[in-house]
């Protein structure tokens, strides 16, 4: 952690968050948790959420605020 990595991922129209996660898992050397926590456009989202062009998707590691 410390900062974040950004990827621009081309995906077919109508892709879901789960499809994006699958694309990330295919990147060599990138380790993802088994059940990633995801946000779309700064709001928590489910894996079956449909994505639109320009959406910002973030994988959220275990939080520790407060």
């Amino acid at each position, binding site marked *: *952690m*410390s900062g*974040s990595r950004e990827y621009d991922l081309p995906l077919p129209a109508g892709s879901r968050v789960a499809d994006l996660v699958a694309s990330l898992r295919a990147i060599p050397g990138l380790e993802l*948790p*088994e*059940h*990633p*926590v*995801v*946000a779309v456009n*700064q*709001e*928590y*989202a*489910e*894996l079956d959420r449909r994505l639109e062009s320009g959406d910002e998707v*973030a994988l*959220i*590691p*275990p*939080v*520790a*605020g*407060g």
Partner: protein
Amino acid sequence: MISDREGRGGGSDGEGGGHEGAEHPSTVEVFLTDEPLESLDALRRVGTTADGATLTFEGRVRDLNEGRRVARLTYEAYREMAEKELRQICEEAATRFEVAEIVAAHRIGILELGEVSVSISVAAPHRAPCYEASRYVIEELKRRLPIWKHEEYTDGTASWVGAPEPPVGAGPGRPNERPRERQK
């Protein structure tokens, strides 16, 4: 020092978010800042003469975490989402409990022992909703805010709190079920 405050004049403090049947709307204001919360006036100025109760919670940096002596810590945030989620949490509290005003602030950056990391102020006509709203906001923000804590220990080691454990369950509202959640 860069401050990410959203002050009263900025048009971004939420008016409304009041609950059904409220006679007056409740106000929510949130701050994410690297400046000391001890000097954030908005936390100290909650309430009007209609409010018989005000309450301020402060979370502070503690010198011990799971047996390890803490030297200092650093909070990092996904800022845009942290502000959004903090405002959402406060609006939920304002909807569920009869409060007039909630101001919540989280500090990011490097904090020394004893400094205030998070503060929540609530004003309400009556005290019971004050306590309930205050508790709701702190418990929810600890579960949901995309903020991470890097602790430095006096033995020279350091770690990201919670990092080795994968999240249990996912999805909005329940992003971070941590098996060893500690109450402050």
